């Protein structure tokens, strides 16, 4: 249909990209269509020549590709993220991409789109995943900073989206101190700031502050992988925190050596997934990208036709 692919994992002629996370947005396609923010993020990550040609999709504006109607709608996942509605012969299919329903001060909120077939992600598609309000999690982080003023708090957060959201939430909670960031976050934080998302004073978490007490009481944000690395040695007796929906499961936190799990996710939890399926009014649901079987089971109980789409190449651990 229409001769294009959504979030292809291999280079193709025409790709429609929902958002800038690396497992969805890859370089090397001949033609790429995405929101302007997503295109800018891809250029930041892969260089200006990440695709042969690019075309900006304006949210809510219908376009035609090979006789097929295509419309991008906000997905509430990260800055620039979109769902893609595809229409042909009176049938509308919505590809959700990754999405969440919780408020996020760093991106536009998800809009439910009425459709016949809803292709939904299911990263947290189990009834055990219910994300608490992110503000409560940030309050727990700040409480811990007060409790342990002699230690640095290392907040593991994905470089695109989660990191900026955590920083913005800290500012909303009244935290005005400089926040130290890992080098991998610098470009994206700059980009968010340019887009008018005020992240407050950010400083590089450089080794120059090697008198370790320099980081006592500080909040440091970096990609989760960095904290298991030698990089983390510059901080005094750090409290390792991780902002992720996976942190709902205690064993996950234990396995990663996380001392302060923060349950903050850019994906929908179980209640958001099920509520969204109802809102779209879809008669048929395709479930992908996560724990398909539980959500398919739920659809069956609700009398909604559903099937799993087992796609390869996406990171199960997304978030």
């Amino acid at each position, binding site marked *: 249909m229409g001769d294009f692919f959504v979030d292809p994992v291999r280079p193709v002629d025409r790709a429609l990209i929902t958002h800038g996370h690396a497992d969805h947005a890859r370089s090397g396609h001949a033609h790429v269509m995405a929101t302007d923010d997503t295109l800018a993020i891809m250029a930041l990550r892969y260089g200006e020549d990440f695709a042969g040609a690019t075309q900006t999709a304006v949210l809510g504006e219908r376009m035609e590709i090979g006789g097929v109607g295509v419309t991008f709608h906000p997905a509430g996942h990260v800055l620039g993220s979109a769902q893609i509605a595809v229409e042909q012969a009176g049938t509308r299919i919505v590809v959700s991409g990754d999405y969440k329903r919780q408020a996020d001060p760093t991106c536009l909120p998800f809009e439910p789109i009425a459709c016949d077939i809803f292709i939904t992600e299911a990263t947290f598609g189990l*009834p*055990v995943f*219910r994300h608490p309000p992110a503000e409560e999690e940030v309050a727990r982080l700040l409480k811990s900073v007060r409790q342990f003023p002699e230690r640095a708090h290392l907040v593991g957060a994905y470089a695109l989206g989660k990191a900026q959201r955590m920083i913005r939430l800290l500012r909303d909670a009244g935290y005005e101190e400089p926040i130290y960031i890992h080098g991998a976050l610098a470009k994206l934080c700059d980009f968010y700031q340019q887009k008018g998302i005020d992240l407050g004073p950010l400083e590089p978490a450089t080794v120059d502050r090697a008198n370790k007490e320099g980081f006592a009481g500080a909040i440091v944000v970096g990609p989760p992988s960095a*904290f*298991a690395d030698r*990089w983390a040695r510059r901080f005094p007796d750090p409290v390792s925190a991780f902002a992720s929906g996976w942190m709902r499961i205690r064993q996950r936190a234990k396995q990663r050596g996380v001392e302060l799990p923060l349950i903050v996710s850019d994906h929908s939890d179980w209640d958001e997934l099920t509520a969204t399926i109802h809102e779209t009014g879809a008669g048929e649901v395709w479930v992908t990208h996560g724990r398909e079987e539980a959500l398919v089971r*739920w659809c069956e109980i609700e009398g909604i036709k559903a099937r799993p789409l087992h796609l390869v190449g996406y990171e199960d651990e997304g978030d």
Partner: protein
Amino acid sequence: MDAFAQLLDRLVLASARNAKLALMRDYFSVTRDPDRGLALAALTGDLSFSSVKPAMLRTLITERMDPVLFAYSYDYVGDLAETVSLAWQQREGSRPNDRDISLADAVERLSSASRSDGPRVLEDLLDRMEAPARFAIIKLVTGGLRVGVSTGLAKQALAEMGGVHVHEIEELWHGLTPPYGELFAWLEGTGEKPVSAARAMFRPVMLSTATDLAELANVDPSEYSAEWKWDGIRVQAVSESGTRRLYSRTGDDISGTFPDVLEAMDFDAALDGELLVGTPPDHTGSFSDLQQRLNRKSVSDKQLKAFPAFVRCYDLLQEADEDLRPLPFVERRKRLEAFIGALGSPRFDLSPLVPFGNWEELEGLRTAPPHPVIEGVMLKRHDSRYLPGRPRGPWFKWKRDPHTVDAVLMYAQRGHGKRSSFYSDYTFGVWTGDAGQPELVPVGKAYFGFTDEELKQIDKFVRDNTIDRYGPVRAVRAEPGHGLVIEVAFEGLARSTRHKSGVAMRFPRVSRLRWDKPPHEADRLETLQAMLD
């Protein structure tokens, strides 16, 4: 309830002692009575409910949730209490309107519930709470919080909160009951120190400091008595006006585990000694024999018969109404000898003094003790009063040198806190099987004994030689021709059915890194097996 749930969640993930202490201190300082006292009771294992059984949980959740979705969830999470707490679907209309239901409310409802209405009471509580509090409630009713806090650590947090010495808390502890209002009032300076009304109270134990020949060179041997240091567990047996208690050295009441000792406490006194198993004076069992009797809630007749417990006495702290602690050691010793002689019980015997002329002579006795259950000698100054804690000087312990074995590093795990980016917990093994094709079998784990500089070196070795990863654990190259040999020191060896190697080390630690030694020259399992008693 929220604050208590958060405390538990943080305690279970905090590995450093100081972090745990800070978390408890903070909680006790900002939480009101009686919640904090009930939390304390929960942490020390003094809170239990009989109206709810763990088996009910599964029934309760599948009454309100599709069993298939529950099965997927349980399968993913792996822990029943956690799965139920997370997947619990609040009943329509029972949105947590009183979300801040207090710990005291919850405890009150659960403890006043009968066996028949227990499940409904639990269900109602779960409906009114968020996931972390639901988890805390389920842990409370199913028993065993398992957050890595000992009673001793909880007492230490109380002591720090009130700026008092932990001995004062230990001494009072057994006269206090939840929710400990009086205790908190005293610690906060709003009330008098509680007067211990309990009979057979615990007396804080006197401990010794480690010494060696170099230090003793400056000490006059004629001022000290020596006695054997037995390898059991230090206990205090207190009997007063019919109340009998056996305490561990931190003041935990372990009476229930040793009915045989308790039965023999037909006296009015407080004795300090070593708990051992066997039939004195002919037979004294090993530490691994003693382990058959430790940490049990109930004890079978078979165990009582196979491993009878007794106390080998070191000191007499109280006799009838007289507190002997201010007396000099030699005086107390005379009283102890007379007391044990008159008692004539097979469950209480005397730890003999070891006569010696000079340190070199004692050194000879120490290195070749007459009994395998001796782990060194104790030195006690003749004039020493019985003081709580570990004063330096009046008492020394001079332990037998540890055993050592050369083992090969097999796995390394990342540490926590200051060590969170270092591979600092090591699993090591020794060779077994055919000499031509030997295999390593793990024999223990060690996570201290090295310097910061050595830690960096091992960490680098681990990162450069990783062959596999399992979460925070890395498997490292450990082959006859390539690997890291660690000299491991340990205090003793016991048979173990839980370990593949069949042996378990006591108190293993890294004693030296043998970068110079090729792995194939490390020890074999047979060497360890020969050390089993």
